[in-house]
C-alpha cells in the first residue's frame, strides 16, 4: 500500500468573513500527480499554500509527509519548506540581476550550501545548458519557467507544487514544460500538485480535483496515460 503523502481532514482557511476553503478532506498518495482545477477565487492557491507550508490553516488537520503542519513552529515550518517542498509559480519570481545558475544556487544556499557544479547540471537537465550565464530578462518565458523548475527540484523535494506554472506560456512551451516535469518526476519520484485553469494541462495528471467556492466538488481519476 502506498502511504498518503498528504492527508487533510476538515481543512479550513478563512480570511475574516471570507471562507476561502471550506472543511476539506483530501488524501494524496505518494508519487501521485494531482491536478487542481476550479474557477478563479475557488480556493486553489489557498489550498496549495496550506499544503506547502506557506500559510497556516484556520481549522482542521493537515499532515504532509508525516509532519503535522499545525504542530510545527515557524522554524519547523521553514525547515519543512526547505527540505520537503519545491514550488513553481505562474510569475517566475527569479532574481532579475542574478544569472540562471546563480538563481539556482540561491535556492541551494537557503537550503544548505551552494554547489555550482550541481546547479549547472540541474540547468542542463532542464535543457538550459547553453543559457547558464543569462539573466532572467534575457530568457524567454518558457526558459524562465524551466529555470524555476531547476530551482524547485535542486533540493530534491518530495512534493512539487505548481501554481499555474504554464499560465503565461504558449501552447508549445506549455507542452515542453509539462514533458520536462513528467520526465523529472519519473526520475526523482516526487509527488506533484498542479493548479491549473487549463483542461489540457490538468490531463497530464493521474487525478484531478475540482474546487468550487472552497468546496471539493469533483474528484476524477484519469483513465488513460
Amino acid at each position, binding site marked *: 500500500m502506498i502511504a498518503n503523502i498528504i492527508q487533510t481532514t476538515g481543512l479550513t482557511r478563512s480570511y475574516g468573513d471570507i471562507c476561502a476553503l471550506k472543511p476539506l478532506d483530501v488524501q494524496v498518495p505518494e508519487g501521485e500527480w494531482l491536478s487542481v482545477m476550479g474557477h478563479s477565487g475557488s480556493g486553489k492557491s489557498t489550498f496549495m499554500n496550506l499544503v506547502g507550508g506557506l500559510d497556516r490553516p484556520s481549522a482542521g488537520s493537515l499532515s504532509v509527509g508525516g509532519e503535522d503542519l499545525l504542530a510545527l513552529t515557524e522554524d519547523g515550518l521553514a525547515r519543512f519548506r526547505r*527540505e520537503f517542498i519545491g514550488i513553481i509559480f505562474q510569475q517566475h519570481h527569479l532574481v532579475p540581476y542574478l544569472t540562471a545558475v546563480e538563481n539556482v544556487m540561491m535556492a*541551494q544556499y537557503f*537550503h*544548505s*550550501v551552494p*554547489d555550482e557544479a*550541481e546547479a549547472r547540471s*540541474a540547468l542542463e537537465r532542464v535543457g538550459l545548458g547553453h543559457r547558464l550565464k543569462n539573466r532572467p530578462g534575457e530568457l524567454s518565458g518558457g526558459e524562465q519557467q524551466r529555470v524555476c523548475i531547476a530551482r524547485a527540484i*535542486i*533540493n*530534491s523535494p518530495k512534493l512539487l507544487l505548481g501554481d499555474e506554472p504554464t499560465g503565461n506560456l504558449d501552447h508549445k512551451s506549455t507542452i515542453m514544460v509539462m514533458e520536462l516535469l513528467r520526465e523529472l518526476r519519473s526520475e526523482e519520484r516526487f509527488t506533484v500538485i498542479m493548479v491549473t485553469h487549463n483542461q489540457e494541462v490538468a490531463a497530464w495528471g493521474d487525478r484531478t480535483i475540482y474546487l468550487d467556492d472552497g468546496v471539493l466538488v469533483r474528484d476524477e481519476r484519469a483513465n488513460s496515460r
Partner: protein
Amino acid sequence: MIVIKLIPHAVSWAVIALFLVRGFHAGRLMVIISGSGGFALGALGALVLFRLLPPESAFGIIRGGLGVSLLLLWGVAVMAAYRPFWKRTTYFEGTGFTVMCACLAGCMAGAVSASRLSGSGTSLAPYLALILVGGALASYAGAVEKRIPEWFIVGGPSLAAVVVALLLYGSSLSLRLDLFAPLTMKVMKFAHDFVHQFMESMLIPDHVFIRSNLWKYIGVLFGKEIGFWGALVIWFTPLLLIVYAIQFEPLPSVAHIRQGAERRRLLAVFIHIRRYRLIPALLAVLVLTAAVYRSCVPSVEYWDPKPIVVTATPVGDIFIPRKGDIDLEDGKLHKYLFRQGGKEARFFIIMGPSGKLTVVLDACAICKPDGYGQAEGTVICYYCKTLIPLDTVGRSGGCNPVPLAFSEKDDGVHINAVTLMNEWDNTVQTTTKVKGAGK
C-alpha cells in the same frame, strides 16, 4: 579582602571545570573528581612550597608550571594545525588521558589560587577552605554543564586553549605569578643581545658608526615595544593556530552520497557545527587579552609616593631625620629628589624587614630610570616590572636599585650630595645610552 582576591580565581576554576566536563566525554563524575583532586593537590602543594622555600622560589616554581602549560598549549596548537583530523586520533582519548588532563588542570588552578593565600601565613585552615570551595565549584560546574546546549562543542585544542588562557589570566592577577611581564623582558633582552651579536659578527662597532637617526630604527629592537609585541606573539600564536585549525578543518568526504541535496545538507551541518566550535577558542583569545591587560595594568595598589625635594648643606650633606614629617620606620618606600647644577637625582629610603634602613637610588643598573614603587613585600621596577623582595633591597646587581652609601647620625640619615650625583650619573648614563629607547 583575601576572599575578594580569590573571587576571580574561583570563577576561572569553575569555568575550567565546566569546560573540562564538556570537553571530555569520559564521564562527568570522573572529570569532576579528578579535577577537584588535582585542585586539592595543587593547593596543598603550594602550601608545602610556601612552608619549605623562600617565597621567591615558591612563586618561581608555580610560575614555571604555568610556563610549562603555555608550552603544552603550543604543542597542542602546532599539532592541531598540522593535524586537521585531530578528532580522529586515538592518542588523546581514553579514561587515563582524561583523568590526567583534568588532574593537571586542577592542580595548576589550585596552585595559582592558593598562591594568593601566601600573604596571610602558612596555616592549613585557609588552604583547606579553598580546597573545599574548589571541589564545590567543580561539582556545581558539572551541574551547570548539563544545561548548556548540545551545540556547544569543545574540541581538544579549544579545551586546552581555554584552560591555559584561564590559568594565565589567574596568574596575571598576581604580580609575583605574572608571566607576561617577565616574558616581555626576556624577549627584549633577546632582541637586544641579538642585535649586538649580529653587529659583532658583522664587525660593525655598534656605537661609533651608527648615526643617531639610524638608531631611531635600530632602537626599536632595543625598546620596550619589541618585548611587548614579541611576548604577544608568543602568547597568542597557539590560539591563532587553533582557531585556524578549526576554521580550516577539511570538510567531510561526501562524494559517496549521490543525492546533491543530501550531500549539501551534510556539508551545511558540518560548517554550522564548525562555527560553534570556534566559540571556545575565541573565548580563550578574549581571556588571554584580559590577562595581557591585567599584566600591563596591574590592579595591585602600588605605594607610589611623590618624590620629596631635599637640599644639601653647603658642605654637601643631605640630612633626612628618622622621625621628621615623615616616619622613615613605617616600612614604606620614601622617595626623594635632589637638584644640583641643573641636574637631578632620585633616591629612596626604606626600612627592610630586618629593621634596618636602606638608602638606594631610584634606578637600577639595567633599566631606564623609571623608578620604583612598592607592592606586597616587594618594590617593583616600573620599567621592567621586576619585583625586588624587600629584604634584598640594598644589595646591588640585576634590577635591584643601586645602593647608596649613607651614615646614620643625629637620629637621621646623612647622604653625601656629591656621591649621590656621581652614582646617579654613572647609573643613568649607561641605562639611557640608547637614545631614549632604553636598554
